[in-house]
């Protein structure tokens, strides 16, 4: 277990390093002077000189990278070009909104998709199975930003049931929650379809296994056979899918945050890209990468916990 964790964390460190290198070289691969790119063509020479000095742009590239790396390891991701505030502080105040959105989006998708997939697999060919099948494909096919726009138009503008933009008043939980509903619905909808299909497929496979027939032959109730035995095995590949799904949701969240004007990390990165505010872009992408690596690691550990065969091979 300990060697496994060490290995996984070592691999994660390598991935983070690679991402850092990529982010850093992105800044230098864009043609032109980074200072002019950041400040615009009408910036004064003084402002450019000041920016170049502050960003150490006149030093050799390798030195710049190691400086960037050293700071990043210490939790210093640089300063916002405009406000001069530390990037970490800016990310810290926004990450909560993004996490809430991603987790709620995936949460409701799991709570609906997994049972739907189970029910469809237990009665293949039934009306429920067919409806689930059609809706799954439909939900997967519609991009989440379209769902966002439609949901916004219908529920906020037309029906006026839910607020359209922002994240709600700080401290007012009910208000924040009501602001969360539409974006979470929009980014989770496709995942209901993915999960339902995945669970259905692996459930159908597991229900045909000899050990399920054994459980039936020993007289276990259908409920226990499906939930206690079949789902216990069928859920394992689904957990991997959910882990990877968080990665997909990070990018869906960017759209949802833009459309609903939520002050999350996604919107922050989007704004920073348009403003050529590179430290913010670097910091935001780095945080998203770390989040993704962490979620995949957690899903792998969860599988090891649920599957003794995986556990004993660790």
């Amino acid at each position: 277990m300990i060697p496994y964790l060490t290995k996984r964390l070592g691999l994660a460190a390598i991935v983070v390093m690679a991402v850092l290198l990529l982010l850093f070289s992105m800044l230098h691969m864009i043609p032109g002077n980074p200072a002019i790119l950041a400040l615009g063509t009408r910036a004064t020479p003084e402002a450019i000189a000041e920016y170049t000095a502050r960003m150490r742009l006149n030093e050799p590239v390798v030195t710049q990278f190691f400086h960037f790396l050293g700071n990043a390891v210490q939790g210093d991701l640089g300063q916002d070009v405009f406000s001069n505030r530390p990037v970490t502080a800016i990310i810290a105040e926004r990450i909560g909104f993004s996490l809430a959105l991603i987790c709620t989006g995936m949460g409701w998708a799991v709570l609906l998709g997994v049972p739907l997939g189970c029910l469809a697999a237990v009665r293949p060919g039934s009306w429920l199975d067919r409806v689930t099948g059609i809706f799954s494909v439909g939900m997967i096919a519609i991009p989440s930003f379209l769902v966002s726009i439609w949901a916004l138009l219908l529920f906020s503008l037309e029906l006026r049931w839910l607020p359209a933009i922002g994240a709600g008043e700080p401290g007012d939980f009910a208000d924040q929650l009501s602001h969360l509903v539409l974006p979470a619905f929009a980014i989770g909808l496709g995942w209901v379809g993915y999960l339902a299909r995945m669970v259905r497929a692996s459930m159908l496979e597991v229900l045909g296994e000899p050990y399920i027939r054994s459980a039936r032959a020993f007289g276990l109730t259908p409920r226990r056979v499906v939930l206690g035995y079949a789902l216990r095995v069928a859920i394992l590949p689904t957990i991997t899918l959910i882990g990877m799904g968080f990665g997909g949701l990070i990018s869906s969240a960017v759209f949802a945050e833009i459309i609903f004007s939520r002050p999350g990390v996604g919107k922050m990165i989007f704004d920073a890209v348009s403003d050529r505010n590179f430290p913010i872009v670097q910091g935001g992408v780095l945080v998203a990468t770390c989040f993704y690596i962490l979620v995949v690691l957690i899903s792998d550990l969860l599988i090891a916990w649920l599957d003794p065969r995986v556990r004993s091979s660790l």
Partner: protein
Amino acid sequence: MKDMVSRTGNDTLLSIDGLTLDFRTNRGRVKALRDISFPVRKGRILGIVGESGSGKSTVLWSILGLLAGNADVTAGRIDYGDKNLLTLDAEGLRALRGEEVSVVFQDPMTSQIPVLPYARQMSDILYRRSMSEAAKRAAAVDMLRRVGIPDPESRVDAYPHQFSGGMRQRAGIAMSMLTGPNLLLADEPTTALDVTMEAQMIGLMRGLRDDFDTTIVVVSHNLGLIAEMCDDVVVMYAGEVVETGEVHDIFHNARHPYTRALLECDPARIADVTRKLPVIPGDIPDLTKPLAGCIFAGRCQKAMPACVTTAPPLIKRGTGAARCHLLEGPLADPSWPPAPEVPTVARDTGTATVRGAAKGEPLLEVRDLNVQFRTMGALKARMNGVARPFVDAVLDVSLDIRPGETLALVGESGSGKTTLGRTILNLQSAAGGSVRFDGAEIGNMAERRFKPLRRDMAMMFQDPVGSLSPRKSVRALISEPLLIHGAEGRDLDAEAERLADMVRLPRGFLSRYPHELSGGQARRVGVARALALNPRLIVADEPTAGLDVSVQGETLNLMADLQAEHGLSYLIITHNLPVVRHIADRIAIMYLGRIVEDGPAAEVFAKPAHPYTRALVEGVPQPDPDRRRPPSAAIEGEVPSLLRRPKGCDFATRCPLARDACRVEKPEHRQLTPDRRHACLFPLIDTQDNKNKTETP
């Protein structure tokens, strides 16, 4: 057919009457069971025997109401007590399952859920009992101890993958006996196990029947198991019961031609090893439109025109019955059934004759061959201070095969016999020793240089259907080796037809695909592929695995004919000892990667020198209820893991004759006679005695 056997009577626990069942498939309705009737008598062990496609397992699953979704029961009843199981509702059936009727499954590797420990699986079975969790656990521990799981208090928390095959099947039996069922159904309970494990399971199940007074129904294609274990026998063929009776009557006085043929085809029964194996010609009939008359008429040696059109009468005898025109009525033949010694099945008349001892220089010479598998990475081994991070899968193996000779490599699973075969074919690298083919060293040769040699050495793979690409036609499959080895200027179609003729596969089959072939036909395609390049040596991995008794003989006869015609040498890798006796000139017995004994097959069988050889030879259940062995005859324990190779003799941990010296000193290979070797410190025959014997021809 209500009168097949009396179903009234207090000694009947379960009675099946007129059970008729179809499977809806896209080929139409397969009439899988037709008018099945037989009783299961209380406290007895009933065996249902038949070949694949006979419907024997379907009968078992009908009793439990666990048939596949496309099954339609169209007629009949299954009475258990005062209930008809076929009309019982789901609730009623579930109350019965696990509590009154329980099951032992065929493959313990797949029939136990991998993610739950045995403690949980077993307490789940007891969910209907109002017992505390601690009491359920105690019951599970007790039952595991009863079936012979060592240290059950801690093993009850193990998961299935932590048990070996034999232990898993013991645990499977413990699970089925946990509730003390009245009726235990066993579906091919030993098919997935080795010979020594099989003998242990038979003993265990008979013991449980005596202790718990449980009635057992066992389904098997293994006549030895049926003879050794059962009191009553039901013989099924193509969805019908052709004969029922007490075990002694069936095995010594069979009345149906199919029963006779099945018994005669069993290689374990045939003492005469010089003649060719008998076969039942033809294939199982198409069950979408079965014959109006006798179902066996198409393959029966005694068939008359009326057999095809008129259903045979049911002729009772004692508690049993048989369904055949020969026994009674206008077509009765007073000379039927003939005495047991008289063969009723045609012996294949091929070109093969009595084998002479092969002479000449060895074609294949293996000397001190070692194969190692890495157990951990080099870095990890250094960190943990492991000097040799390897296991010896093959250890110091020496063997010779002369042109035209058949050497059988025999051992249980995990003995390294397949690894040895792969190493000889240079599919696995050797860690030491030499492999010489036709005088030239070929061990660890680079594939580029070895490729021309592959024409001379072919492989027949274990799984006849699984080793054929499902997307290629038989024609493409047979000519594939020719394509790989450059067949410029050769007419591939003509070659495919030549090879098909050679293995006696009708040319019409060339356009079929593997899933359209029966096991025996797929096996013949495998033989044709092996023969495509006119090899001199064929390595055959379990050539009869998965084949029915009646087809097994056909494959072996074909291999013998081809050997006689083309002077082929065979290395046959198998665990099937009765078959080995008929086809091998010499045998080598492997245990934990070492050859413990080798020599001429007949001599080794008649007088084994190594206790392991003797255990294997005696471990085969005899298809004769009069030759049952006491339960104590089975050797105990299981093949140890290669990671824990015993210090002295590899077999010392299981050997009934092991002495202190055996646990210390590793026995060297010793020459017993010029062509017999063994690796035992205290061989069962001493050298002097044997010398005298072999001098007299």
